[in-house]
C-alpha cells in the first residue's frame, strides 16, 4: 500500500510543480466551457428541450478527466527516457503497485482539474449542482472514470517508447472518444452506425454516469454505466499488471 501511496504522491507533486501543465490543463476545458456554453447554449435553449449549461458542464468535466488521465501516461514515457523508470523496475516493489500508484496519481490530478472546471462553471456559467450532498458521490464517479483512462494511458505508454509518438497515439484515441461520448451534444439522434460506435466508447458511460450524478437525474441505466466502468477497471488492471511485469529497458 505504501508503494501505491508513494507513487500517487509523486504524480501529484510532479503536477503541482509544473505551472505550465496546471495552466494548460485548466485553460483547455475552460475555453471549451466558455466557447461552447456561450456559443451553443442559446441555440439549444431555443429548442426548449435542454438547459445546455446543465448538460455541458458534466461533459467538460468528463473531458478534463479523459484528457488528464490519458496524458498521465506521458510521465511513464518521460521516466523511460530519463531513467527514473529503471530505478523503480530494479526495486523489489510489486509492479502492479507501481501501475496502480501511477494511475491513482494521474486520476487525482485529473479530478483536481475537474473540480476546478466545476467551480468555474458554477461561478461563470451559472451551473447548479443537483444537491450539495452528492459531492462525495460525484468525486467517486470522477475517480472511477479517471481510473479507467489512467490505467489505459499507462498501458499504452508502457508499450510505446517513442517520446513523440505518444501524444499522436493519444490524440487519435482521445478526440473521437470525447466527441462521440455525448459530452457536448446529445447522441441519441445520431445515425445508427454512429450510435453503435458511441456504445463501444467507454467515455459515453462515464459522461452519462457523471451527468446523472451531478444533475441528480439518475436512472437504472446508470447502473449499467457504473458496471461498464468497473468492468473496464478490472480488465485494465489485469492487462496492465501483465504489461508492467514484462517491461524491459
Amino acid at each position: 500500500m505504501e508503494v501505491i501511496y508513494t507513487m500517487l504522491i509523486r504524480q501529484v507533486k510532479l503536477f503541482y510543480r509544473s505551472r505550465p501543465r496546471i495552466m494548460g490543463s485548466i485553460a483547455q476545458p475552460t475555453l471549451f466551457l466558455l466557447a461552447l456554453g456561450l456559443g451553443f447554449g442559446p441555440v439549444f435553449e431555443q429548442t426548449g428541450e435542454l438547459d445546455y449549461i446543465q448538460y455541458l458542464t458534466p461533459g467538460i468535466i468528463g473531458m478534463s478527466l479523459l484528457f488528464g488521465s490519458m496524458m498521465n501516461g506521458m510521465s511513464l514515457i518521460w521516466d523511460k527516457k530519463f531513467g527514473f523508470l529503471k530505478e523503480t523496475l530494479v526495486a523489489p516493489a510489486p509492479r502492479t503497485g507501481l501501475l496502480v500508484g501511477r494511475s491513482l496519481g494521474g486520476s487525482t490530478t485529473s479530478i483536481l482539474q475537474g473540480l476546478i472546471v466545476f467551480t468555474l462553471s458554477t461561478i461563470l456559467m451559472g451551473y447548479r449542482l443537483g444537491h450539495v450532498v452528492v459531492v462525495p458521490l460525484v468525486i467517486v464517479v470522477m475517480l472511477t472514470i479517471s481510473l479507467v483512462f489512467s490505467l489505459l494511458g499507462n498501458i499504452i505508454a508502457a508499450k510505446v517508447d517513442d517520446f513523440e509518438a505518444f501524444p499522436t497515439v493519444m490524440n487519435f484515441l482521445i478526440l473521437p472518444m470525447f466527441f462521440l461520448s455525448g459530452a457536448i451534444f446529445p447522441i441519441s439522434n445520431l445515425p445508427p452506425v454512429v450510435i453503435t460506435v458511441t456504445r463501444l466508447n467507454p467515455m459515453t458511460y462515464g459522461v452519462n454516469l457523471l451527468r446523472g450524478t451531478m444533475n441528480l437525474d439518475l436512472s437504472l441505466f446508470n447502473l449499467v454505466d457504473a458496471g461498464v466502468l468497473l468492468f473496464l477497471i478490472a480488465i485494465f488492471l489485469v492487462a496492465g499488471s501483465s504489461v508492467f511485469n514484462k517491461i524491459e529497458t
Partner: protein
Amino acid sequence: MNSQGNVSRPDNRPENDKVIEVSHLTKDFNGITAVDNISFTVQEGDIFAFLGPNGAGKSTAIKILTTILRPTAGKIVVNGCDVIKDEHRVRESIGVVFQEHTLDTELTAYENLYYHCVLYKVPRKERKDRIETMLNHIGLWERRNHLVKTFSGGMKRRVEIVRGLLHYPRILILDEPTSGLDAQTRFFLWNHIEEVNSEYKVTIFLTSHNLEEIEKVSRHTAIIDKGRILSIGSNQEIMEKTRTGSLEKAFLEITGYSIRN
C-alpha cells in the same frame, strides 16, 4: 550507514562465498547475439570489474544481473537466488547505479532517497536517519530540499551512489559510475566505493572505461568483447598473460586496437 557515514550490514544475510554465479549466459536480440555463452563467478567482498569496448555486451549483462532484462539462455544466481525464478529477492539484495542518471529531477534529493526507502521497504523509523547520514557523508544534507534538476552531474552521481546503499545491499552494481565526472568527484567516489567494500564487505561489480582507475580499484577483472569473455582473473594475472605492464595495455592486447562502432 552509521553516524560516520558507513554501511552497516544486516545480520540475517545468507552466507555464500559466491555472490554472483553466471553459467552459459546468452542474450539474443532478434538474431543478434549481444552476450554469447559467458560464465563467471564473483566472490563475496570482491571488487570485480567487467571491462569491454563499446557494444561488447557489458550493459546487457548488467541489465540481466539486475533483473530488468531476461536472458535467452543460461543460469544466473545472485546472492543464492535465481534472477528469473526469484527476481524479487535478487532485487532486495542488490544496489544499482546505472550509467545514465536515474534520479527524478523534479523531486528533491530527500524525496528521491525517501521514495527509494519505500520501494526497498526500509523500516519507516530508520529512513530519516539513514538519509541524513548518507547525505551528510556526501556533503549534500544542506541541499536536501533542492530539486535534483538544480544539481551538477557530480552531485547527482553522489546522490545515486548513496541511494544504491540506502537499503544495505549485499552487492553494489555500478555501470560506469564516474563517466563524465571531474577528477575531484571521481576521487571522492572511488574512495567511497573502496570504503564501502573494505569496511563492510559490500561486493562491488562495476564497469568503467577508465582502465587506470579500474586497475587501482578492482581485484578481479573480466574482459568481454563481442559478447564473449576473452580473459578473466586478477589484474596481475591478466597483465602477466599478456606480458604488459598495465591493465589498459592488457585490455588493448586482448580486444585489439581497431575502433568500435
